């Protein structure tokens, strides 16, 4: 086994393959970071729409709650398939990348809404009363009272979830999006040993995920310390 891998390695890490993997890596990064960023923004909107003292009028609250509860309970693969076939049947010409991106956004929004809710709930009740007593508008309560206090609670876990979405994008290989996992499958089909193909992308995934996770942990330690002091 090892002799064959040693023989394969120079060919595997040839310029063409490196370019191929690089392109796949860029796609994985774009898919997960853009998807997570968009999804997180929508998620914040959902959390604001769920809170009775912000913009939570009843129908909006019910819709937002239903969305969050349902989308957090469907596996990524099933969501991906639903989005994929919905695009296909609606006759829209969407690239596979768009299909995967939409799926990441839909999931990220549901998870971010829960984190943001925890952040909003971390603002103590007297602050809400005080803002109300001073006749703050909802928008001012949000931007001047809630946001400055809750971002410390909300920001660190988002990085953990971002790592989750980087990992989820590997499932997008199922519909044929040219990202790392699909690239590895193609290289494997071309006859390179499975150890080289999957081993290399495992390392690449680790190199993306680990720093992202570390940033979240560092932020949590720093912001937590400052919140206590």
């Amino acid at each position, binding site marked *: *086994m090892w002799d064959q891998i040693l023989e394969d390695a120079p060919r595997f890490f040839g310029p063409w393959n490196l370019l191929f993997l690089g392109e796949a890596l860029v796609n994985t990064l774009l898919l997960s970071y853009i998807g997570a960023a968009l999804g997180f923004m929508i998620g914040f909107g959902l959390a604001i729409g769920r809170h009775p003292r912000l913009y939570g009028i009843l129908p909006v609250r019910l819709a937002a*709650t239903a969305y969050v*509860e*349902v989308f957090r*309970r*469907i*596996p*990524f*693969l*099933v*969501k991906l*398939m*639903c989005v994929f*076939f*919905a695009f*296909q*049947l*609606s*006759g829209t010409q969407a690239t596979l990348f768009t299909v995967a991106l939409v799926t990441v956004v839909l999931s990220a929004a549901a998870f971010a809404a829960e984190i943001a809710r925890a952040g909003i709930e971390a603002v103590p009740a007297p602050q809400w009363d005080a803002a109300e007593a001073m006749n703050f508008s909802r928008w001012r309560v949000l931007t001047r009272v809630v946001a400055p206090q809750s971002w410390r609670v909300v920001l660190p876990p988002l990085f953990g979830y971002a*790592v989750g979405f*980087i*990992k*989820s*994008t*590997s*499932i997008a*290989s*199922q519909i044929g999006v040219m990202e*790392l*996992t699909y690239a*590895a*499958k193609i290289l*494997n089909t071309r006859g390179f*040993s*499975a*150890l080289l193909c*999957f*081993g290399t*992308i*495992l390392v690449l*995934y*680790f190199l993306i*995920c*680990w720093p992202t*996770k570390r940033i979240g942990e560092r932020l949590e330690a720093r912001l937590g310390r400052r919140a206590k002091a």
Partner: protein
Amino acid sequence: MNYTLIYSQVTGHIPYLLGGAVLTLQLAVISFLAGWAIGLLNASVLHFGPRPARLAVQGYVTFFINTPLLVQIFFIFFVLPDAGILLSPYAAVAIGMSLNAGAYLTEIQRAGFQSLRREEIDAATAMGFSVPQLVWYVVLPHIAKALYPPLSNQFIIQVMTTSIAAIFAVEELTGRAYNVNSLTFRSLEVFSIVAVIYVLLTLVCSVALALLGRWLFRVKARVF
């Protein structure tokens, strides 16, 4: 958009899909229990073990948490045969999911171990408890209540994660959805029904776990 959703062709297959849900639960339970055992062992090592063992456990946890489960299973399924270990798809998925869950459950249980007061451990050591005895009789009963909510949360995650088994042609819920899809070509109908089944399945699990927790530990878990 000229497509009409026709559910009537798919509804007949719902019992077949629910049969897949049983396999889904089975995979989730197996991987959760195996992962829990790995996690307990690892957390004990992190707390009481020598430095090299601690580093090994930390390496395992960091690696498995920062790489995708799908690729881990690809690795197990396609690379181990080169080394002469042939695994069935089901076994490969179960092993991959257990190792992956083991990493997360190590993290969860490590946090539980750290919440234990030093005096408890000192007292048990003074009374001549060995480390396994200490973990089983002193640490676990203390942290069981605090650990119950994150553990049941992890179980729900395991239920959803099993859908990855479909990629390896294991006929659990999602795998059977692929089968029904290729039989009826009512793709969106099939996968939307499966999505609903997943929502209901995890809801039932959440409620059952919350009730169990209330009965066992008087944990007031909220389902929503």
